Each structure stands twice: as structure tokens, then as C-alpha cells.
């Protein structure tokens, strides 16, 4: 049986969701403040110059720089693989740049949500020494990931 420190109760799933929402609201507020602060507000930067040429071709390594391995692979695999990867690259190029930040931040948020809400509490905290809030790994997951969410929002 896991010892319980007197006077300190464990978090229920509802409390965990509420805590995550409060942390999310605090994060959002801080991000909005950082974004609005005149000393550190970032200006939008135009997209980088496209690597794809005007003809829509992907950049090819110059022949002089190719090793014999590159030449063999190009002769055998390039005709088969190029149409597939050209299609994928064309699709990816159509994705707007703001989606990059959304995906980046989304990866962190999804991981937090998965641990804090979806996973079974007993599975997450299996083997913990004391049953308290401070040993709840769901809370520490959110705390550990929060700074990362902030930086990806800031450096967008």
C-alpha cells in the first residue's frame, strides 16, 4: 500500500483537467503579453526564397559532386521515387507557414493532454513513493512541457 502524507489528498481526473486548463490560460496570457510587449514584439518575416526552381523541379546535386554511390542510386531509384516525392513536396508547399507553429505547439499540447487526461492515473503514477499532488507525474508532465510551448510560441 502506498503511504499517504496526512492532510494532502491526491488529484482526481477532474482536478487534473482544471489544473491543465488553468495552466493553459496562464500560458496563453503570458504569450499574448510577450507578443504585445513593444520591446520584444517580433515583426513578420517573409517566406524564405523557394528552393524549388521555376520549373517546379526539386534541386539536383551537381554531377561533379556526386559520388559513385549517388550516381548508381540516381540511375536506379530516382525515376521510381521522384514522382512520389514530387507529389508530396508539392502538397507540403501548399501548407501555409502559420501551420508550422500550430503543428509544433500542437505536438506539445497533445502530449500533455494524452498524459494528463487520457492515460490511466494509476498507470501514470505506478510505483510512486507517496500519494500526493507533488508526486503526480501528470502535473510534472504539464510543468515540464510548459516552457517549451512558450518558446515555440515566442520564436514563431
Amino acid at each position, binding site marked *: 500500500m502506498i503511504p499517504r502524507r496526512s492532510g494532502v489528498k491526491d488529484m482526481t481526473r477532474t482536478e487534473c483537467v482544471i489544473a491543465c486548463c488553468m495552466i493553459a490560460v496562464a500560458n496563453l496570457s503570458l504569450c499574448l503579453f510577450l507578443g504585445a510587449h513593444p*520591446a*520584444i514584439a517580433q515583426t513578420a*518575416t*517573409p*517566406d*524564405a526564397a*523557394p*528552393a*524549388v526552381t521555376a520549373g517546379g*523541379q*526539386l*534541386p*539536383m*546535386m551537381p554531377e561533379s559532386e*556526386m*559520388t559513385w*554511390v*549517388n550516381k548508381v*542510386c*540516381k540511375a536506379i*531509384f*530516382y525515376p521510381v*521515387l*521522384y514522382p512520389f*516525392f514530387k507529389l508530396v*513536396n508539392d502538397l*507540403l*508547399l501548399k*501548407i501555409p*507557414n502559420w501551420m*508550422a*507553429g500550430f*503543428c*509544433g505547439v500542437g*505536438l*506539445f499540447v497533445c*502530449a500533455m493532454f*494524452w*498524459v494528463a487526461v487520457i492515460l*490511466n492515473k494509476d*498507470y*501514470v*503514477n*505506478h*510505483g*510512486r*513513493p507517496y500519494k500526493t499532488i507533488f*508526486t503526480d*507525474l501528470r502535473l*510534472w*508532465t504539464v*510543468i*515540464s*512541457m510548459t*516552457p*517549451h510551448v512558450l*518558446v*515555440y510560441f515566442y*520564436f*514563431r
Partner: protein
Amino acid sequence: MESAMGLHFIDVIIIVVYMIGSLALGIYCTRFVGSAEDFFIAGKSLPFWAIGFSIVTSDIGAVDFVAVAGAAYVNGVSAANFDWMGSMPAMVIAAFVFVPYFWRSGVFTIPEFLGRRYNTAVQFINGLIWAVVLFFMLAIMQWLSADKLMHTVLGWNPYITLWITAGITGIYTFSGGLTAVVFTDVVQLIVMYVGGMGLLALSLWEVGGWSALHTKILALGPQYKDHFTLLLPHNTTGPFPWTGIVFGLGLVMAVAYMSGNQVIVQRTLGARSEWDAKGGMLFGGLLKFFIPLMVALPGLCAIILVPNLGRENADRAVPEMIRLLMPAGLRGLMFAALFAAMMSHISASLNSTTTIFITDIIGQLRNWMGKAPVKEKTALRLGRIITAALIISTALLAKPIADREQIYVFMQTILSLFQGPLLAVLLLGITWPRATGYGGLAGLVLGVMCCFVLKYTPGLFPSEEPFLFVAWWSFVFAMIVTVVVSLLTKPESEEKLRGLVWSSVVRDEDAQRALNNRVTQ
């Protein structure tokens, strides 16, 4: 008084005191080693905070201080993705998907776990791949740290630096095993933080603060306009487009590294409880957040303070900053921090390579030859012999192996050849009961071949160094191959899978009880 090496006397004292202290602490840990389990997984006694510290120092080497700063000098803050996007989500996935299985099964290595889940062929191939990769990386790390860092700044003979660090690291790893490695890592991370934060503070002070840094860099021209953007457009010519970072790094390479790299996972295998194993991963992720602040941001400051380096000499950004900014005393502490990073990385790789050699290479070869498993005392003796042999051989071969092109991208390229397929096999092995031994073997072998083809066929990706895309697509290919071959072959028995697959552990209380019994036996 300045010494002939360019360091003040007090700097040398600080470095010597640090080296002797590390050696003494490592040798002290010998008293805790009485068996192979003590040597390889610290007798399953590590607390979460030691695991967290050790994961960070094992991951960060002196080369990272140099190479990430150099990458930030050239490509901007996007170089920090490897320690942010490329760490935390993967560590969370590792903590709650993979680590519980590894810890509960009582294995010493990840290939050993794959051997139980699939077959001994998968174990041997996986073990061989990691043994070779770790061997080469150990040699490269030693030479590049000694040459690119110590020789550049201090003018020290790189061979002398190499043998001193190899000697000290080898002695305490030989003596104390994982216990010595982990507890010296705790001290080393503290020293790294003090030195790294000192460099950051001085750099920002010299530049005029964060806002001034931002303004000055952007004013240098359009080639710097993306230097403060973490996620670059998909069609950028640099090596870090956002699609590669999110999918190739965040979902594949980072997860494969944090879950499939013996150097990282071995710390969690030595945890005193499953909670400590998971908590150690999370704590390590939180500590890793500060690493790019110490390595990438000084690289950005170097654009202003050392503007004449150029792309080809970008890796000299941190050494030049140390030379310019740090006074006597603090310079010694910074070098102690760099030595700390170097030694922790070497000791971690050394201990893990030894473990893989004993368990997965020698152990499997004996198994196939029909010989009995190595006894406990023999395994301990053999572990120490191989540790000594590895440190000596890698030190001897360091320079020939290390004469390659740009450090950081090359090492990541090597890892990208194997990590996608390895992750696919590991992930399916844990989450899908229908995955079979033949499926795992086919996925691994064909996945690595796919990596090779994608890497060496030009003109398929917009990036100049498409290792992130190669990792993602080889992972997808290996998943498909493993699924198809598994469906075409006979399923594994329920008894074999008990306790090794997600559903059987999360839902089945009998399986949990059986695993607990297996661990305690």
C-alpha cells in the same frame, strides 16, 4: 600570471581540481559494485533526480557546445530544435510508452528486450548496429572535443587532452560502472550549468541585451531574417525545415533516440522504481529546456561579437567567445564545464557500449554456439575488460575516424540511417500483438536499406541535408514492411507476449502480476 598554455594559473587549478574530484567520486562508487547488475544498471537503485541529471549530461557533449552554437551561428535559433522539439515530446512518449516495459522486464539493454519480443536475430542486429554506432561516435567525440575545442582555444596538444580525458573517464567507468557514471554526471551537470549560464550572461551583456541582439542581427541583412524563427518554411534550403523538424525529428528521430538509445534508456533501467524511471525522464526533459539557452544563444551572440568566422569556421564560435569574454577564474570554470560535458558523454557511451557487447553480442554468440550464459562474476570481469579495451581502442582510432566533414550534421545523418526503422520495430513490438519475429527482422533490414537509398539518391527533397526527411520516410516504410510481413507469418503465442505488449500490461492484471514476479525473480 598567465601560463604558457594561455590560461591563468587559477584556471588550471580549477580544471585540475575538477578532474581529480570527478575521478575520486567515480572511484568511491566502486564500493557499490559487487555484481554485473550493479555494474550495468546500478543495482536498480537510482533515484529520479539522478536519472534526470544523468540523461541530460549523457546526451550533451562538449561537441554540442561547439556544434550547436556553430549551427545557430549559420542557421539561427532553429538549431535549438534538437533540444526542444527533439527532446521533450519524445521523453514524454518514452516515459509512458517504452520505459515501463523496459524497466518491468528487467532487461539490461533494448536489444535484449527486442530479442524477447521478436527473436535473437533482431536482438543481434540491433545490438550490432548500436555497438558500431556508439563505437564510432565515441571515437569521434573524443577527437573532436580534444582538437576542435581544446586545441583551438588553449593550444593544447589534442593527443594529450584526448588521453587525459580518456584515462580519467575510463578509470572511473571501469571501477564503478553505471553508478559512478550517474553520480559523476550529477556533479558535471551542475558545473556545466554554472559555466554555460555564465557564458550566456556575459554574451548577452556584451551584445547589449536580448532586444539589441535581435535588432543587430536582423540589421545585418536578409540572410539573417530567419535567425529568430524556430520553424522554418518547408522549402528552405537549410537542413531544418519545419516539416522535417516536426515529423522527422519530433515524431521519429527524437522518439527513437530517447526510447531506443541504450545510452539514454540505461539510466531508467537502473531506477529504483517504475515511478523513478518515468519521473527521471520527465525531470531530464525539464532540465534539457535550459541547454539551448546555454549553447544556441551564445552562437547567436557570436554573429555580432565574432563576425568574421564565416560558415566554414562557425564551430569556432564558442571557443572564440570564451577567449574574448571570460576573465581568469571564470574561464577555468567554463573549461571545467566543457571537460564535464566531454567526460560525461564519453563515460555514458562507454558504459552502454560495454553493456551491449556483453549482453547482445557476446551473449547471443554464446547462445547460438550452444554455450551456457555468462556467469555473474564473469560478466562483471568481462564488462571491466571490455570497458578498458573500448576506451583504449577508441582513443587510438579517434583521429582517423574523426576526419570527416561538418560535425553535427554528420552524426545526425548516421543516426538517421538507423533510427527510423529501429523505432518502427520497437513501436510495433510494444503496441501491436500481431507483430511477429519475421516482421520485425524484415522491417529492420529493409528499413535500413530504404534509409540508404533515400539518403544517397539525389534530387528527392528540397533540403540540402535531408536527414530529417530520410528518418521520417524510412520509419513509414519500415512500419509498412513490418505490418505486411507480420500478417503473412504465424502470430506469436500469447504466453510469449505476456507482459511485453501494451494491452497485456495495461489491462491484464494477471500479466502485471506475472511481470512483477519476473522482475523480482
